[in-house]
C-alpha cells in the first residue's frame, strides 16, 4: 500500500469532514436566525440522538432483534427508567454497563 496515497486521501477526508463541521457554526453563530429556523434547530438534538440510538438498540444487521440475548435493548429499559426518574448521568451509564456485563456473564 502506497502510504503517500493513503496520506493524500486523508487530506481529502479531512476537507469533506471539517467543512460540514465548521461552516454552519462559523456562519450562523453570530447571526440572529429567523424564529422558524431556531425552532427547527431546537428539535435537532432530540432527533439526532434518537436516530443514532434506537437503531443500535433494536436492529442487528438490519433485522429487528427482540431476542433475550439482545442485551443492548434490555439494558436500555432500566437505563431509560433510571435516567427519567433520577436524572443521574453517571448512574445511567454505570447501570447500563453493569447490566450488559451481567447479562453476558450469566447468560452467555
Amino acid at each position, binding site marked *: 500500500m502506497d502510504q503517500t496515497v493513503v496520506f493524500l*486521501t486523508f487530506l*481529502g*477526508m479531512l476537507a469533506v469532514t471539517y467543512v460540514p463541521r465548521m461552516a454552519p*457554526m462559523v456562519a450562523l453563530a453570530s447571526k440572529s436566525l429567523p424564529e422558524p429556523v431556531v425552532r*427547527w434547530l431546537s428539535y435537532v438534538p432530540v432527533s*439526532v440522538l434518537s436516530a443514532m440510538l434506537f437503531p443500535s438498540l433494536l436492529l442487528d444487521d438490519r433485522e429487528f432483534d427482540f431476542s433475550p440475548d439482545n442485551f443492548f435493548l434490555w439494558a*436500555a429499559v432500566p437505563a431509560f427508567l433510571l435516567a427519567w426518574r433520577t436524572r443521574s*448521568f453517571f448512574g445511567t451509564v454505570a447501570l447500563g454497563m453493569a447490566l450488559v456485563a451481567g447479562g453476558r456473564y450469566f447468560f452467555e
Partner: protein
Amino acid sequence: MTIDAVAGDHAESPMISAARLVAPIVMGYLPVGVAYGVLAQQAGLSMLNTVLMSVLVYAGSAQLIAVALFAAGVSPWSIIATTFVVNLRHLLMSASLAPNLKSWRKWELALFSYQVTDESFAVHSARFARGDRNKATGFAINYIAQVSWVLASFVGFVAGASIPRVEPLGIDYALPAMFIALLVMQTKNRLHVLVAGFTGLAAICLIRAGADQWSVILATVMGATFGAGVETWTKR
C-alpha cells in the same frame, strides 16, 4: 452527578465538570479506537498514517469504513466521497450548536467545530440546554476525547489483537447508555417524546430499506421538521 448538575449550576470547576462529562466518551472511544488501530494495521496502513487519520479526520465510523475500503483497494476518490456522506450529519449538529455560541470569536468556532463528533455534540447540546456555556469546559471535553481516540488508535496498532477483550466489562455499552441519559435530559415535553419516537422509527425504516449511511441525517431532517411542524400547528 445528576443531570441537573451538568449545568454547572453548582460550584464545580470547569475542569471537574469536563472530566465527569467526558468520562463515558473516553470509555467508549478507547475500545473502538483500539479496534480501529488493529484493523488499520491489518489493512496495511503505516503506524504514522494510522495515528494521523485519528488526528486529521477524527470520525469513528468513517475511519473504520475507510480502513475497510483501503484494505479492499477502493480508489481514494470513492473513499473521500463515502467519508463525506457518512460525516454529513455533523452539518446539522454544527448548525444546532451555533445559536449557543453567539459570543465566540470566529477562530474559536473554527477550532471548536473541528472536534464535533456524535458524542461531543451530544454532551455539548445537553450542557447548553442546561445553560452551561463555559468555553474551557467545552474545549477540555473535546481535547480529552480526541486525545483518548488518538492514543487508542496507536495502542491498537502496536498491540494488535493481543489486547484483551473488553466485552465482559460492558464497556461497549458506555456510549449507548450515555446517549440514553443525554436523550432523556433533552426530552422536556410530550412533543419531544413524540419526535424521539418518530425519528427513531424513521431511522430504523431507512436502515432496513438499505440507506444505512444516510439514515441519521435523513431521519434527523424528518424528525426536526415533524417537531417544528407540530409545534407551529398546535400554537396556531
